[in-house]
C-alpha cells in the first residue's frame, strides 16, 4: 500500500521536474522584504496562484513511447494505460506554474517566530555563501552574479518566486509568462517598497533569471530537449520515493530510481528523505522547525547557478580525443564520444555505459532503438526505456565499463559503496550507505545554445536545483564528498570530471585528473589517464531555500505561526 500524500498541500515541482512536464521556459525572481507586514501581504496575494502537486489533466499529451527521440520510463507507464501520477484529476494543467520559497533571513523578515526559526538546520541558517568552503565555491565567490554578491542588508535575497511556463511551437514562452511577470511587478509596486524585486541576474543585470530548455529544431517546429550546453543529455536518474507515483508506476519507476535492498530488489526511498514531517530512511521523522505543521510537506532546496565553459570543455575533449584516437587506433569521432561518455557515465544522448559499454555497442543500441521506433514496437521500446535507469554496479566493481570517478557514479553510487560488495551475496547490503544521500534534481539551462562555438563570451550554463529534506546530509554531502573529493571511490583527491573543482585557486594551473580503467576487451589492457583538466563549471551564486507547504504558507502570511 503506497502512502497517499496530501498533494494539494505540497508545492508543485517537488514530485516532478517542471522541465519534463511541459514547462521548458522559466523565470526565477529574487525579492527582498523591507517591511514584514507588507511582505506578508505580498505572500497572501500570491498564495492563491501557487501551483501545488495536485494531479491535473494535460490536454496536449502525445503518444507515449513514440513522441520523443528516446523513450522514457513514464512513457512505459502510460503505454500500459495506468496513471503515472498519484491522486485524482481535478484540475487542468496551468500555463504557468508559480512557486515560492524563502531563505532563512526571508522567514525572519516575514516575522516567523524565533522559536520556529531556531528549529531550522544550521546550513539553512548559514546560507550558501557561508557554506562556500565546504561546497568548493570559495574560489569563485567574486565571480557570482550581482544579486548574490550583494545579498546582504537592504538587498538580501529573501524570496524566490519561480515561474515555469509552457512554450509556443516557435520556441517562445506562452504569453501568460509575461502576463504573470507583469502581475508580480504590480504586486511589488503595490507594496510601496515593502517588497522589492532584486536585479543582477547575469549580464545586463536583469531582475529575473531567464531559463529555457535547449530546443531541437525539426523543420521549424521547436521542441524542448533534455540537453545542456556541453551537449550532454541530463536528468535521467532521479530518486523515486514512497507516495511520489501511483502503484503500477511506482513498480516500474523504482527499478533504477529507488533503493537497492540486500536481496537486490528495488524499493522506493522513504518519503521523509524529500518531504519534512514524514518517516525517513533512518526510520524516524527527522527533527524539524516547530510546530510540525509548519514543516510537514515542506522541504529544502539548494539553488545554484552554474556557468558552463563550453569552449574549455570542447577544447579539452578534442585534445584528449586526439590522443585517445592515436593510442587506441580508433577514429577521432569514436575517441571523442568515448572520452566524453567515460567522464560522464552516459553517452551524450543519455544511453548509460552500463547498457552500451563501447562505441560499437552504443551504435548498435541506437540502431535497435531506431528500428523499434520505425516498427512502432512498443514492447521493445518499453524494454529499452528501462535500460536508461535500471542498472547497478555489481558487475563493474572496478569501473571498467563505467569509471568509478565518472559524474554519474559520483552523483548516485547506487550499490557501489556496499561495504560487503565483494562478499558472498547473503552479506550484501544493497544501497544502504547511499539512501540518505539522494537528492531530487530540478532546474533548466540558461543562455543561448551554441554548440561548437565559443559563444563570444556569452555566458551559458544551468540552474541546478537540489531538493531534499536535509541540505546538510544530502546535498552538501554529495557536493563535498562525492563531487569535490574522491576517497569514497578510491580515487584520492580527484574531483568530479564535469562539475568538480580542477584548480587549487582561480587562475591556477589545471590539475583535474581522472583515470579511465582499461577496457577488459582490449587485449593490451591499457588505461587512459585524463590529466591537466581545466575548470569546466563555475558557480555563479545561489542560496538555500525553504519550500513551505500550502499550510505553512498560510501560517506565514497570516502571521499565526504558533510554535508552543
Amino acid at each position, binding site marked *: 500500500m503506497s502512502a497517499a500524500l496530501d498533494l494539494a498541500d505540497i508545492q508543485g515541482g517537488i514530485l516532478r521536474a517542471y522541465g519534463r512536464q511541459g514547462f521548458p521556459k522559466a523565470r526565477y525572481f529574487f525579492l527582498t522584504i523591507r517591511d514584514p507586514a507588507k511582505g506578508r501581504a505580498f505572500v497572501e496575494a500570491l498564495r492563491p496562484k501557487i501551483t501545488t502537486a495536485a494531479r491535473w489533466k494535460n490536454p496536449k499529451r502525445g503518444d507515449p513511447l513514440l513522441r520523443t527521440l528516446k523513450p522514457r520510463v513514464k512513457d512505459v507507464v502510460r503505454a500500459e494505460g495506468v496513471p503515472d501520477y498519484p491522486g485524482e484529476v481535478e484540475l487542468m494543467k496551468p500555463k504557468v506554474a508559480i512557486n515560492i520559497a524563502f531563505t532563512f533571513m526571508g522567514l525572519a523578515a516575514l516575522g516567523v517566530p524565533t522559536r520556529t526559526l531556531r528549529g531550522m538546520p544550521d546550513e539553512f541558517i548559514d546560507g550558501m555563501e557561508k557554506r562556500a568552503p565546504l561546497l568548493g565555491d570559495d574560489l569563485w565567490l567574486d565571480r557570482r552574479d550581482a544579486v548574490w554578491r550583494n545579498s546582504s542588508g537592504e538587498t538580501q535575497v529573501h524570496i524566490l518566486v519561480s515561474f515555469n511556463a509552457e512554450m509556443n511551437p516557435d520556441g517562445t514562452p506562452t504569453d501568460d509568462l509575461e502576463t504573470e511577470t507583469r502581475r508580480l511587478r504590480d504586486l511589488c509596486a503595490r507594496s510601496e517598497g515593502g517588497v522589492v524585486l532584486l536585479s543582477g541576474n547575469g549580464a545586463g543585470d536583469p531582475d529575473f533569471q531567464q531559463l529555457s530548455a535547449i530546443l531541437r529544431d525539426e523543420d521549424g517546429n521547436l521542441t524542448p530537449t533534455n540537453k545542456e550546453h556541453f551537449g550532454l543529455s541530463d536528468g535521467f536518474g532521479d530518486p523515486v520515493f514512497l507516495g511520489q507515483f501511483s502503484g503500477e508506476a511506482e513498480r516500474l519507476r523504482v527499478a533504477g530510481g529507488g533503493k537497492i535492498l540486500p536481496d537486490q530488489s528495488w524499493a522506493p526511498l522513504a518519503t521523509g528523505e524529500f518531504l519534512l514531517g514524514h518517516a525517513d530512511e533512518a526510520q524516524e521523522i527527522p527533527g524539524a522547525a516547530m510546530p510540525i505543521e509548519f514543516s510537514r510537506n515542506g522541504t529544502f532546496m539548494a539553488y545554484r547557478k552554474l556557468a558552463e565553459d563550453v569552449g574549455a570543455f570542447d577544447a579539452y575533449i578534442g585534445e584528449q580525443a586526439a*590522443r585517445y584516437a*592515436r*593510442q587506441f587506433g580508433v577514429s577521432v569521432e569514436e575517441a571523442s564520444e568515448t572520452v566524453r561518455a567515460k567522464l560522464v557515465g552516459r553517452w551524450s544522448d543519455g544511453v548509460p555505459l552500463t547498457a552500451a559499454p563501447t562505441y560499437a555497442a552504443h551504435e548498435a543500441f541506437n540502431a535497435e532503438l531506431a528500428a523499434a521506433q520505425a516498427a512502432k514496437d512498443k514492447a521493445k521500446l518499453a524494454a529499452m526505456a528501462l535500460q536508461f535507469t535500471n542498472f547497478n554496479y555489481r558487475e563493474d566493481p572496478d569501473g571498467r565499463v563505467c569509471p568509478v570517478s565518472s559524474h554519474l557514479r559520483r552523483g548516485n553510487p547506487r550499490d557501489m559503496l556496499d561495504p560487503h560488495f565483494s562478499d558472498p551475496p547473503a552479506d550484501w547490503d544493497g544501497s544502504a550507505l547511499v539512501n540518505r544521500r539522494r537528492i531530487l534534481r530540478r532546474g533548466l539551462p540558461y543562455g543561448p545554445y551554441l554548440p561548437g562555438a565559443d559563444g563570444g563570451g556569452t555566458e551559458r550554463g544551468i540552474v541546478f536545483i537540489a531538493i531534499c529534506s536535509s541540505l546538510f546530509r544530502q546535498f552538501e554531502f554529495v557536493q563535498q564528498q562525492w563531487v569535490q573529493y574522491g576517497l569514497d571511490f578510491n580515487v584520492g583527491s580527484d574531483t568530479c570530471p564535469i562539475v568538480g573543482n580542477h*584548480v*587549487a585557486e582561480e587562475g*591556477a*594551473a589545471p*590539475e583535474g*585528473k581522472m583515470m579511465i580503467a582499461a577496457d577488459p576487451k582490449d587485449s593490451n589492457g591499457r588505461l*587512459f*589517464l585524463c*590529466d*591537466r583538466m581545466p575548470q569546466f563549471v563555475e558557480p555563479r551564486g545561489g542560496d538555500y531555500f525553504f519550500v513551505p507547504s500550502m499550510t505553512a504558507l498560510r501560517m506565514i502570511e497570516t502571521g499565526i505561526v504558533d510554535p508552543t
Partner: protein
Amino acid sequence: MPDFDGGHYFFTAVVPVCNRGIVEHEGMKSSPIHMVREALETLPTALQSHASEKVGIQSPFARSTRTHFARFVILDQPYYNGRDHQDAILATIEGTDLLKAQPHDRLACPYLLVMIDFDPADRSGAGEPRAYLEHLWEVMEEELKAVFGYCYGFPQVHGATGFADFLIGCQIETTMPFNDYWTGPPPLKSLSKGLLLAVLAVAAAVGGFVTWKGHLHWWLAILLILLLLIVGILIDYWLIMSRGAKPFPASGATLPRVLKALYLQQAFARFAADRQGADPAGTGAAFRAFLRENQPRDLAEPTQKPGVIRTFFPGAAA
C-alpha cells in the same frame, strides 16, 4: 588490546593539571588550564589542507619521522547525564526519594589526555615508550614545556629522561588502537568453532566415561558432567580471550615507508600520464630513468616530507 599493536606503539596518558591559583601573563590573569588550552590552540597543525598550506607553519610533531598521529584533549569534567535510571514501579516500592540528589562523579582537577601513535625504535617494541618520549623531548622541548608546564610533577622535569619518567607515570592502557594501515583484513586465523565445540565435547565425554566406569548415581553423573562443562566453557573463554589479546601483525608501515609510498604514488602518476601515447620502445629506458630519479628503495631521498599532504604542487601537474 595491547599498547603495541600492528607494529606501532599506541601511547595513551592522562596527565593531571594543577589548576590552582592564577597565571599572570601579558597583563592578564588566567587560570592554569586556560594557559594549557591556549598552548594547544596555538600549536600549529600539520600542512595537510589548502588552508594550513597557506599558513605555512608546520606542526612540531613533523620534526619527527616516527610520529603518525598525535592528539591532545582536555578533560574538564565527566559528563553528567542526570540521575541513574530506575523503573518507576520499583522506585515507588523502594521508596526512592527523587528530591534527594544522587552523588555524581567529579574530577578533582582537569586532565590532559595525550594520544600518540608512533613507530618503535626497535621493531619488537622493546624500550618503548621511553625511547620515543625522550626523542620527542629532543625535537620539541619548547612546545612540550608550553603544553605540560602546568601539570602536576612537570616543574620537577629536567631533560629527556625526566620527561619520559613523567609521562610514563601517567600512562594508561590503550584499549582500542586504530590500525589505519591495514587496508584489508590482516592474515589472522580465526579461532575454529570446531575446536571450541571439541573442548566441550571432550568435557562431556570425560564425564560420561567416569560415570560409566565408576557406576555413578544419575544425579552425581549430571553434577559431574555439568561441572566439567563449566570447566570446558572456562577453557573456551580463555582460548578466545588469549587469542584476542594477541597483537595485530605488523603492517610494516613505518612513517618513512608511508612517506616514500606517497611520494612514489604521486611521482608514478606523473610518469604514467607523461608516457601515455609515447612510443613503447622508449618505455623501458624512461622507466629506468624514473627508477634512477626516484630511487624506490631509498627511504631517505627523494621522499615526501612529514606533515604535508602532497609533494607535487599545482602547476607541476599530476
